[in-house]
């Protein structure tokens, strides 16, 4: 702890200019009372740990509030404040201005480039790095949310031995001695357990370690690994390679139960490429066509032109049938599996064949290796190899997780052949397959240590609990999906007495180098001395190391693969089948203590805080879920029935959630919940259990066998006779495109052909009897015309936004971006159940079908998404009703919300037809007892207190900065100079923001697009500034779409 504060020694060693900056910034940070407060106290929350209740919890999550802020009313004395200047100012640092760094976030061994925004030395936001292939400037929800983990008060703060505080030096002394002792027999009995290792430096260190201790074992394990993909490649390809997709070149995309836009190391990039192929914004007249055959609705399925729900266990048969239709060698004749429409399949096959070399067929990581192999064969047959499907050597030194090796290691532990286990990161006790008793193994070992950010299940089972540095605190490196290497540079000194894996290994082998030296030394070796410093600094600046992308390699499908696969008979489910997947938000459980991700509505299901047993309506009925007498179906807004699911004698108790659009007989479980240790957010609280879900632990059904992701047969189900409250941010709302709701004109859609043939519609003003003056919040104005309102005064900036419904996949990246940019608090499960979540932007999910009448349930519904945030109505209903003029209209056409003027009558929210205003029913934002959280706040945005209304204002803080800079330059804000957080984050570039009085700006072009329409404007004449571009699909004419 103390070593953080006088970072002098480290500061000296970091003589690089970047290095010095951190040191200074920390010093400044050290001046802040928050920092002092917990520097003085080793365990600042000793007290709160004892008396923890819901309010406490809320304080632990989300952003903090400077009390003086909103509480300060007209006649109140402000408290005396201190200002603390530097000792010596860093030369290139301007107080009050943010500084940006390029770095990487690593998951599953693969790196994604991030741009870290730091304010006064505090990292406060993660954006994508435009130079990085896996990001291209946008960033998925999970990665963005990791900035919250940095300030997680539940992080391990210092090494402990059997619960007692200890020093790193002690640990390394003990570990060193142990290694010495085991040295004679080559370090046999030493087991290293790591997550997927992608970092070249770390890998070289591990190799180095294994060189010194040849008999030591290194087991690499992560639950969500791409095992089946590698297996498929091994089965099909020579040489064995890793394949990447060029979706930007693909005209036809067929997804066989995969979601390339949500899973895998290139998810964000693939989303960008696929959606770029569907973007009609820039005058393009052609779209790619997406077919999705899937067991559960995915973001890819939602945007697909043709979607077919199909059991996961039928996908192999379906793939074979497809291969047969395409004439892949050796398959022969293969019938389409039961329930599949022959014409559908045939039409799709024809479509593929017609687009040789310009199509991609992909399958999901949870599908068995045979399917991956056959998909390779199909792609090669379609001539996609070398065009849309690119092969490189595997990026990771060890491309796959070693479940079997883990199993044998555990056996040895139990047999007492292991003396020392070092677990670096990860949480195997929690996330190893149920039939591998990792804890039992650890209990049998003399020396166990766990390097981890949290005191989680594995730490609990180890003697040494060692704090791991957050990636924003440490030096490192990593490779992207295509091999491009990047340097991970820290943006703040470690908040606690923690070490990164790299520093850990350095110390373990008795080295004395600091993180930066270690990484630099490695790359000096890799790049060569010549001009290293220059290349190093370029690499730091760009966030990528030029020319490190892996070269494409030629790879063919093995002869006779077709026959081989044709022979295989895959097992098909006789009853219900269980599909297990990493959770869309908390993933494999590593983000379970992250409030943002816990409260982030999961794509399509919109569940928060829990996982569930998802199935379609029929399956739920067959399992014995009670239908609601009143509604005639199973409503989403009542307590969910619980079901017991038993596999191999292990049972989990899960709440049933009806997820419309899933395939019959499939039960989908998500990993990552049911955690028992590792933080306050992931645990149900003692006194207020309803406040956290916590969910159930699906790992109990996760087996080390051939394909852990599916339990095709042998799962038993019985109703538990209990119910469980699920917190759903949105019920099953439906829109019948044909009936009553149709004239609400909420969603508009068309097909590509119709769109191209359609005449451009001229945009007419709505006729109105409504007194225009009512639209201006400006007090004392009277009889002012539309122009005087400045609504469209061309001399002012007129901000506007378009949201392209064709491109929105519902990935939620925008929601987290907004939360992080605007200090939006999280509220906890109970408050979400009450309908009080605070997200400023929400993604509405509609099912086509009459939500009220008897037509429920729909098992294959049309699913439509619509991001909704404040529309910035020119004629805003919220404005005239506010008694204190806290929400008024600006000259630039924004609907301003003045938090400190708000008295909280909630009238504006009642009168808002879009219901985009959010009210602080409780003091969600405040956590003065967790000051470390305040470091995360964006200083450019007021933190709202209790009793205040808040909403989106187009990231007005960014507009203001741009305006001021432009004024100082003496010109106007250029198009693209101001972006909103949601726009930055969106991987499919669905959101465009800009100045509509500038005719040349992108947004004003889109506003005049044929597709543009204004939500509810037709009824209410609200004149929204946020305009939607109606959804365009590109259905295959041969299929009845």
């Amino acid at each position, binding site marked *: 702890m103390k070593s953080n504060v006088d970072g002098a020694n480290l500061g000296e060693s970091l003589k690089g200019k970047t290095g010095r900056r951190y040191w200074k910034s920390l010093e400044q940070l050290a001046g802040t009372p928050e920092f002092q407060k917990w520097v003085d106290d080793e365990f600042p929350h000793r007290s709160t740990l004892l008396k923890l209740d819901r309010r406490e919890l809320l304080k632990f999550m989300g952003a903090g509030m400077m009390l003086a802020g*909103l509480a300060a009313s007209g006649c109140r004395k402000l408290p005396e404040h201190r200002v603390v200047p530097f000792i010596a100012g860093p030369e290139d640092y301007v107080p009050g201005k943010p500084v940006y760094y390029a770095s990487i976030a690593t998951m599953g061994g693969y790196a994604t480039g991030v741009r870290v925004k730091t304010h006064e030395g505090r990292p406060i936001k993660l954006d994508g790095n435009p130079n990085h292939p896996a990001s291209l400037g946008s960033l998925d929800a999970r990665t963005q949310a990791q900035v919250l983990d940095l300030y997680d008060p539940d992080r391990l703060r210092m090494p402990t031995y059997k619960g007692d505080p200890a020093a790193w030096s002690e640990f390394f002394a003990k570990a060193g001695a142990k290694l010495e002792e085991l040295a004679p027999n080559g370090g046999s009995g030493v087991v290293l357990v790591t997550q997927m290792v992608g970092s070249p430096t770390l890998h070289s260190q591990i190799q180095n370690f294994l060189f010194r201790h040849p008999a030591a074992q290194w087991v690499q394990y992560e639950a969500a690994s791409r095992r089946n993909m590698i297996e498929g490649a091994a089965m099909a390809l020579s040489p064995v390679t890793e394949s990447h997709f060029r979706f930007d070149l693909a005209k036809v995309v067929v997804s066989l139960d995969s979601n390339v836009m949500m899973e895998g190391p290139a998810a964000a990039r693939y989303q960008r490429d696929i959606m770029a192929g569907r973007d009609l914004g820039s005058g393009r007249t052609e779209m790619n066509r997406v077919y999705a055959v899937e067991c559960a609705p995915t973001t890819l399925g939602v945007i697909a032109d043709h979607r077919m729900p199909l059991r996961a266990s039928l996908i192999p048969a379906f793939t074979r049938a497809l291969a047969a239709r395409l004439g892949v060698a050796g398959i022969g004749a293969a019938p389409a599996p039961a329930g599949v429409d022959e014409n559908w399949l045939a039409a799709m096959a024809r479509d593929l064949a017609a687009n040789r070399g310009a199509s991609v067929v992909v399958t999901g990581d949870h599908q068995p290796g045979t399917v991956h192999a056959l998909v390779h064969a199909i792609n090669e047959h379609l001539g996609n190899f070398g065009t849309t499907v690119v092969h490189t050597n595997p990026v990771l030194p060890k491309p796959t997780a070693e479940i079997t090796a883990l199993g044998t290691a555990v056996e040895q532990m139990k047999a007492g052949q292991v003396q020392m286990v070092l677990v670096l990161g990860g949480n195997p006790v929690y996330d190893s397959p149920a039939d591998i008793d990792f804890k039992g193994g650890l209990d049998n070992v003399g020396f166990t240590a766990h390097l981890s950010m949290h005191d989680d299940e594995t730490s609990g089972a180890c003697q040494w609990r060692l704090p791991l540095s957050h990636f924003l605190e440490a030096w490192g490196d990593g490779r992207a999906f295509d091999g491009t290497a990047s340097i991970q540079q820290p943006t703040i000194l470690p908040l606690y007495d923690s070490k990164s894996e790299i520093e850990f290994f350095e110390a373990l082998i008795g080295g004395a180098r600091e993180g930066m030296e270690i990484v630099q030394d490695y790359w000096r070796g890799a790049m060569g001395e010549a001009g290293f410093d220059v290349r190093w600094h370029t690499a730091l600046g760009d966030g990528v190391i030029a020319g490190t992308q892996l070269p494409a390699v030629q790879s063919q499908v093995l002869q006779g693969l077709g026959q081989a696969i044709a022979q295989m008979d895959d097992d098909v489910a006789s009853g219900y089948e269980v599909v297990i997947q990493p959770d869309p938000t908390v993933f494999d459980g590593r983000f379970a203590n992250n409030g943002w991700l816990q409260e982030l509505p999961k794509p399509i299901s919109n569940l928060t805080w829990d996982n569930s047993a998802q199935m379609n309506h029929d399956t739920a009925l067959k399992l014995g879920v009670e239908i609601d007498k*009143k*509604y005639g179906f199973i409503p989403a*807004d009542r307590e969910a029935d619980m079901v017991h699911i038993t596999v191999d004698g292990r049972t989990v108790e899960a709440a049933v959630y009806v997820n419309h659009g899933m395939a019959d007989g499939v039960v989908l479980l998500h990993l990552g919940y049911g955690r028992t240790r590792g933080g306050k957010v992931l645990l149900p609280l003692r006194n207020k259990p309803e406040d956290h879900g916590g969910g159930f632990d699906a790992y109990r059904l996760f087996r080390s066998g051939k394909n852990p992701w599916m339990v095709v047969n042998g799962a038993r189900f019985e109703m538990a006779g209990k119910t469980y409250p699920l917190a759903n941010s*949105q*019920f099953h*709302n*439906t*829109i019948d495109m044909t009936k*009553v*709701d*149709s*004239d*609400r004109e*909420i969603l508009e859609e068309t097909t590509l052909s119709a769109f191209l043939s359609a005449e451009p519609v001229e945009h007419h003003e709505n006729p109105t009897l409504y007194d225009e003056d*009512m639209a201006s919040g400006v*007090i004392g104005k009277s009889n002012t015309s539309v122009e005087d309102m400045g609504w469209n005064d061309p001399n002012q900036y007129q901000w506007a936004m378009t949201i392209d419904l064709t491109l929105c996949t519902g990935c939620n990246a925008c929601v987290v971006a907004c939360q992080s940019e605007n200090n939006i608090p999280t509220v906890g499960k109970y*408050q979400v159940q*009450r*309908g*009080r*979540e605070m997200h400023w932007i*929400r993604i*509405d*999910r*509609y099912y086509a079908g009459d*939500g*009220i*009448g008897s037509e429920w349930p729909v098992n294959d519904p049309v699913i439509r998404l*619509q991001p*909704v945030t404040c529309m910035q109505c020119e004629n805003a*209903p919220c404005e*005239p*009703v*506010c*008694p*204190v*003029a806290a929400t008024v209209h600006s000259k630039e056409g924004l609907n301003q919300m003045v938090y400190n*003027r*708000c*008295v*909280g*009558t*909630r*009238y504006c*929210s009642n*009168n808002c037809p*879009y*219901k985009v*205003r*959010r*009210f*602080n*029913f*409780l003091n969600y934002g405040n956590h003065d007892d967790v000051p470390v959280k305040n470091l995360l706040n964006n200083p450019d945005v007021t933190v709202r207190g*209790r*009793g*205040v209304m808040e909403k989106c204002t187009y990231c007005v803080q960014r507009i203001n900065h741009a305006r001021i800079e432009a004024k100082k330059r003496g010109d106007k804000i250029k198009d693209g100079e101001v972006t909103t957080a949601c726009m930055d984050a969106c991987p499919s570039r669905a959101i465009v923001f800009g100045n509509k009085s500038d005719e040349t700006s992108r947004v004003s072009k889109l506003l005049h697009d044929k597709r543009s329409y204004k939500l*509810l404007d037709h*009824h209410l004449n609200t004149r929204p500034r946020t305009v939607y571009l109606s959804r365009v699909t590109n259905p295959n004419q041969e299929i009845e779409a």
Partner: protein
Amino acid sequence: MPNKETFDERILTGEQSNAIIDEAIGGVVLDQKRHMHPEIKLPMGLKASPWMVLLMIGFLFVNVLLLAITALVFTGIGIWGNNQPVGWGFDIINFVWWIGIGHAGTLISAILLLLRQQWRNSINRFAEAMTIFAVLCAGMFPLLHTGRPWVAYWLFPYPNVMGLWPQFRSPLIWDVFAVSTYLTVSLLFWYVGLIPDFATLRDRAKKRAAQIVFGILSMGWRGSAKHWHRYMHASIILAGLSAPLVLSVHSIVSLDFAMSIVPGWNVTIFPPYFVAGAVYAGFAMVILFAIPLRKWYHLQDYITMKHFDWMSKVMLATGLIVCYGYAMEWFYAWYSGTAVEQSLIFNKMHLFDAPYSWAYWLLLLCNFAIPQGLWFPKLRRNFKYLFTVCLVISVGMWLERFVIIPMSLTRDYLPSSFGYYSPTIWDFAMFAGTIGFFVFMMMLFVRFLPMITIFEIKELKHHLDHDKHGHAEEVKA
């Protein structure tokens, strides 16, 4: 209580003289014993009077109210059931309901005075008292429903260092003025009306303390012709002032909804519809108190069956206006032809798919079906029926606000934002607390102030005697 009393057209019965009237009404205040019976047997051999019991219950709930308010101010609106999309729930329901209760008082005292309705004399005093207490209850809610009550003073226009004024186009600001004016005028009117009675009490009081207190309150009233002259002018002017208030206050309250664009709120008929509803509820409450009070304090001679007859007829009339309003809602839905309006009615009425339809049908039962009995004189004079009907109407009027306020909010324009509203224990605590406060104040009023205008009854008796002896009625100055 007796079910039937012999009905005659008289509004003042029994052998009367000024002394008898003074004793019958003034005595209630001056003589503590009058509050000690009828005697009620309580468990454990305790004895109490209805007055004591009601006072105690009232006091209990006043404390509940204080507790609820403290919890609210220290924790936040979050302890209530309000949410997205339902920004207003019990808070505004109760506000509107209480404001409504108050209306009968003003109507009786102002409009009936201007119309020279003699039957108002016996009921105006405690009806006006109810008005004031009801407005006090109502006033709490707009204040406390704000997220930050400590800055609620921003709703008042005053020169401030922020250089800001309130938003005068917001109906909530109109409320501020409407309600505060209403309270002020009602208080004045009430007090002025009390002055001559204070004098009577001062003169009849035995205890020195009472004499002094009433002496100060009566402001040196000596009943001289000049006093009476001034007094008549004052009361006519005040009546003139408050007559429009009867209509304006609830019209403005109704504009909180009519001015918005929420389907189910945005209805042009609201002002008259709300006023009628207010009078409806108001008279119900008057009868609820009149029936027991006249019994307990032996005031049958002054509040006769005729009074109840009149009041029942007023209720019947206003009740029908309210029901007309309900009918209009169906018409709108059909005539507007817009989805939102139609699904709104659907959402109100559909027995199965609409979560709150129970409230709507219960409302029709309470406000339409049951009160229709008032057409029949026999039922109008049946106290059991009358008392129940008045209870039912009070419930019904509360339900009406429930149906209008939260129900409309749960289903507005975007189906994605459809929500539910479920009140919490604190919502009920606040509501029960205000009722307790109301009862408590009424009991104090009964104890310390004459619940019927003594001098007006005397005046009335004078007139009646004259009429009896065939003299022409002399007109007062």
